[in-house]
C-alpha cells in the first residue's frame, strides 16, 4: 500500500492536472476576484484619509469571498463521478484525500490572492509603513485558516439542501477569530501603528487547533451517507 | 426619566421572545399530533 504522502500528493497532482486542462473554473474565479476588488474600489473611496486603516479589512473580505467561490467547487468533481463512494471503500486513509483537497484549495486561493493584492496596492496607493515581511506569515496562516475549515465544511455541506449557501453559513461564524486576527495584523502592518506579533501567534494557534480537529473528524464526515 | 423606557423595552422584549418560542413549540406540537392522527387513519 502506498504511503500517506504519496497518496496525498498523487491526488493533488491529479486535481491540478484536471483543473489545468479545462481552465473554465479557474478563469471564472479570477474574473470574479477582479470584480470584487473593483466593487470595493467604488464603494470605499481610496483617496480618503481613513482608507489605510480599513484596507486591511477590505482585502481580507475580498479574499474571503474569493475563497468561498473556490471552496464551493472543491468536491463537485468527486460528486459527479461517485468518486467519494470509491474512496470510502478503499483502504486509503481519508485524511490523505482531505489534505490533498486542502492543499489544492490553498494553491487555488493563493493564486487568487496574488492577483487581488497588487490590484489593491494600485487602486488604494498602498505603502506599507510597518514591517512588510510580516505580511507573508499573515497571508499564509490566514489563507490556511480559511481553506482548512472551508474544505471541511464543504464536505459537511455535501448532503444538504442549498449546498452553496451552507458552506459560508457554517464557515463564517467559526472563522471569526481568524478573520479578526488577519485583519488586525494586516492593518497593524500597513499602518505601522501597532505590533502584529500577537495576532500572528493567534493565527498559528487557530491553524494548529483546527487542522488537528479537521484531521481527527474528517473520517466521520466522509462516512456520512 | 427617559431611560426608564429602555427598562420597559428590555423586559417586554424578553417575554415577547419567550412567548414567540413557546408559541412555535405549541404550533409544531399541534401539527405533529395532526400528522399522527392522519397516519392512524391509514391515509
Amino acid at each position, binding site marked *: 500500500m502506498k504511503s500517506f504522502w504519496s497518496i496525498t500528493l498523487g491526488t493533488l497532482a491529479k486535481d491540478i492536472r484536471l483543473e489545468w486542462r479545462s481552465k473554465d473554473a479557474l478563469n471564472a474565479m479570477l474574473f470574479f476576484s477582479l470584480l470584487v476588488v473593483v466593487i470595493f474600489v467604488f464603494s470605499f473611496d481610496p483617496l480618503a484619509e481613513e482608507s489605510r486603516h480599513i484596507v486591511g479589512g477590505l482585502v481580507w473580505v475580498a479574499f474571503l469571498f474569493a475563497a468561498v467561490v473556490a471552496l464551493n467547487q472543491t468536491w463537485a468533481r468527486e460528486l459527479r463521478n461517485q468518486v467519494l463512494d470509491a474512496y470510502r471503500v478503499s483502504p486509503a486513509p481519508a485524511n490523505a484525500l482531505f489534505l490533498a483537497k486542502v492543499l489544492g484549495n490553498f494553491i487555488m486561493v493563493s493564486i487568487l490572492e496574488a492577483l487581488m493584492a497588487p490590484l489593491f496596492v494600485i487602486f488604494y496607493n498602498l505603502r506599507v509603513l510597518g514591517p512588510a515581511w510580516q505580511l507573508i506569515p499573515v497571508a499564509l496562516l490566514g489563507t490556511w485558516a480559511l481553506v482548512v475549515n472551508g474544505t471541511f465544511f464543504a464536505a*459537511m455541506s455535501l448532503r444538504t*439542501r442549498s449546498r452553496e449557501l451552507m458552506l459560508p453559513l457554517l464557515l463564517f461564524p467559526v472563522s471569526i477569530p481568524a478573520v479578526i486576527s488577519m485583519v488586525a495584523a494586516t492593518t497593524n502592518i500597513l499602518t505601522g501603528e501597532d505590533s502584529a506579533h500577537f495576532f500572528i501567534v493567534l493565527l498559528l494557534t487557530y491553524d494548529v*487547533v483546527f487542522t488537528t480537529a479537521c484531521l481527527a*473528524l474528517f473520517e466521520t464526515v466522509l462516512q456520512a451517507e | 426619566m427617559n*431611560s426608564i423606557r429602555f427598562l420597559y423595552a428590555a*423586559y417586554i422584549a424578553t417575554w415577547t421572545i419567550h412567548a414567540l418560542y413557546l408559541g412555535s413549540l405549541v404550533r409544531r406540537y399541534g401539527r*405533529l399530533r395532526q400528522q399522527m392522527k392522519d397516519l392512524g387513519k391509514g391515509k
Partner: protein
Amino acid sequence: MKKAFPILAVLTAVLLAYAFYEAWWVAPVDALQGQVYRIIYYHVPSAWTAFLLFFINFIASVEYLANARPSTQRAAKWIVIAIGTLGFIAPFIPQVRQQLPVGMYPSSVATTALIIAGLYFLTGKYFPGQDLDLLAVTAAEVGVVFCTIVLVTGPIWARPVWGIWWAPGDIRLTSTLVLWLIYVSYLVLRRFSDSAQTQKLAAVLAVFGALDVPLVYFSIWFFRTQHPQPVIGGGGSIDPRMLHVLLINWTAFLCFAYLVCWSRYRLEKLRREVEEAEVLESLLEPAGPVAPSSKAKGALNRGPQ
C-alpha cells in the same frame, strides 16, 4: 412524570413573578445608572442559562461522537476522569495556583472540573444512545432562544448607559454574538441536512464551535488592548443585595429553561416517532410509492443504531 408538568409550570410562574417583584421593587437603585440598571436581572441570568445550555450541548455532542465505537467510548471516559481528577487537584498545588488569573479561586476551578466530569457521566447515564442527540438539539435550540435575549437586552441596556448600542471591543457581548452565530448555523445544518448522519455532522460542528470560543475571546481581548473601548459597569464587586436578587432571578429562569427544554425534548421525541411511523406506512402500503421520500429514507437509516 407527565402529571408533574402542570404543577411545576405553576410553581415556576410563581417563582418568576416573585423574582420580577424582587428585581423591580426590592433591589436597591444603582448610584450611577439609576433604574435602568435593573435590566441586569434579565440580561445576566439569560446569559448564564444560555452558556449552561450550550455547554450541555457540547458535552452531549462529544459523548455522542465518542459513543460511536466502544474503543473511543472507553477512551473518552478515561479522559474525562483524568480531567476531573487533575482539575480538582491541580489548582491547589502552589506552582499552579500562582498561574491562575487574579480573582479566580482554586476552589472554583476545582468545582468546575468536577461539574464537567459529573455532567459527562450523568448525561451518559440518563440519556443513552439516541437520547443524547435529542438532548443536544434541545439544549442548542433553547440555548439560542436565551442567547437571543442576551443580544437584544444587551444593546437596550448599553444605549442609555454608554450612549451607544454596540461596542466592538465589548468582549462579552461580541463573544456571545459569535456563540449565537455558531449555534444558529448548527440549527440550520440540522434543518437543511438530508443525510442519515445528520446527528454526527451536527455533533462535529458543535465540537468546532466549542474549540472556537476561547479563540474568539482572545482575539477580541487583544484587539481591545490595542484599541481602548468604553468600559462596561464591570470590575469591582457587586452589591450583595443586588447579587441576591440576581441569583433569585437566575434560579427562576433555570426552572423556566428546564420546563422549556422538557417540552422541546418531548416534541423532538414525538417528531421522530411520527417520522418512523411514516416510513413504516410507506413500506407497508400495497402499491407503495415509487420512491420513498428522502426524509423517510433518512429516517429509515437513522433507525435502531
